[in-house]
């Protein structure tokens, strides 16, 4: 009974009461208060339909995607302490991460987490489709979700270059050369040959979309820096905003879908 006594004492202190303004969530009033009064928990509604909490119905894939996104943010920030995005250092920094840094699995968690996130996003979309959850009133949120799916793939793709090994550089070479073939906007795409006045080529390898992506004509050091910024700052910011919209709309559109 001593443990109970200590727990009761801690709950009675001024410090505890200043942090948790309600009693333990053992009765209806406090269960409402804990969800409504906590900045993180209030993503949830206070009550929801029973079908919406069943794992067999939701598979929890959306929630896991968000969790993995947070885990990737944390591990990513930790990795940034040891990584320099230059052709000279990048590869050696990755080796150092494995060999000279305690908890040498940080990069593994980040990499496998990225792959896992792609899988959970796909399965989330699969579930949402199968339960018809894109139907009115949730059409807009489905669109936001599709864009988030693309951004997830782009995040993973930009991160793929950062180890600066053979796997990275050639995967990005193949991928970015598809941008070269964009109609009218890439110099190797249909329409580019038509945009030519005499000897003056309007769409060349120095001003097309691939050049913008790589800051060069091939995957080199400027591309590494550009992908690093896209991976660590640019795309995560957009994703964060869209996740906020996505969650907000789930609540506003009536929570997890259920039969009308």
């Amino acid at each position, binding site marked *: 009974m001593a443990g109970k006594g200590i727990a009761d004492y801690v709950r009675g202190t001024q410090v505890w009461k200043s942090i948790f303004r309600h009693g333990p969530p053992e009765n209806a009033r406090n269960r409402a208060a804990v969800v409504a009064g906590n900045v993180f928990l209030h993503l949830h509604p206070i009550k929801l339909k029973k079908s919406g909490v069943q794992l067999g119905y939701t598979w929890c894939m959306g929630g896991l995607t968000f969790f993995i996104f947070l885990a990737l943010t944390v591990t990513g920030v930790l990795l940034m302490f040891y990584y320099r995005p230059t052709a000279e250092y990048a590869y050696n920094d990755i080796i150092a991460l494995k060999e000279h840094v305690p908890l040498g699995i940080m990069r593994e968690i980040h990499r496998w987490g990225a792959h896992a996130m792609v899988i959970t996003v796909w399965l989330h979309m699969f579930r949402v489709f199968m339960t018809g959850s894109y139907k009115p009133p949730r059409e807009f949120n489905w669109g936001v979700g599709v864009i988030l799916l693309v951004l997830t793939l782009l995040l993973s793709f930009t991160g793929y270059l950062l180890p600066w090994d053979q796997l990275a550089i050639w995967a990005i070479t*193949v991928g970015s050369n598809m941008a070269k073939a964009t109609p009218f906007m890439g110099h190797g795409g249909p329409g580019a040959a038509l945009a030519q006045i005499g000897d003056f080529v309007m769409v060349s390898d120095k001003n097309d979309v691939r050049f*913008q992506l790589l*800051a060069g004509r091939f995957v080199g050091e400027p591309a590494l820096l550009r992908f690093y910024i896209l991976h660590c700052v640019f795309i995560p910011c957009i994703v964060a905003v869209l996740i906020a919209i996505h969650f907000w709309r789930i609540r506003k559109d009536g929570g997890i879908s259920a039969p009308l």
Partner: protein
Amino acid sequence: MSEELQLHLNRREFFSYLSVGWITFTAACAGMASLAFRFSYPNVNFEPEMEFLAGKTSDYEEGVDERWKNGFGVWMVKVEGKLFALSNICTHLGCIPNWLPAELKFKCPCHGSGYYMTGVNFEGPAPRPLERYAISITTEGLIKVDKTKIYRSEKGQWDHPSSFIPV
């Protein structure tokens, strides 16, 4: 009556100021966006030399020569009385094909495009032959390869006098 008209005009005036305001705002946003877009295209970048001297014509034997492949991305090919500088960038997706001397062909590891020694594609997904670079002889008798000028077979440019050196 006149008072009502006054009110009406005021409201109309108000809306026209508002629309001028919105147009200015949109224009400013568009201007900022295009500046940011232009910002992503640097004026100078530090990529390898586009021109190099590739020795004398007598240095090359019949067939494919790989000595400039790693430094400059060029195969020197001497075949059918012509010496030309063949680009080593696959026309499919920009991988680097390998020269397979046993099979007398270039084979791209990414998607399996194959090219004859002349650079003409014959298998796999490559849409067109490899490109050739401008090649000339300097006054000192050395070969100069200029990678800024490209000659493409399907445009009929391989007959251009500066796309090869007769040997």
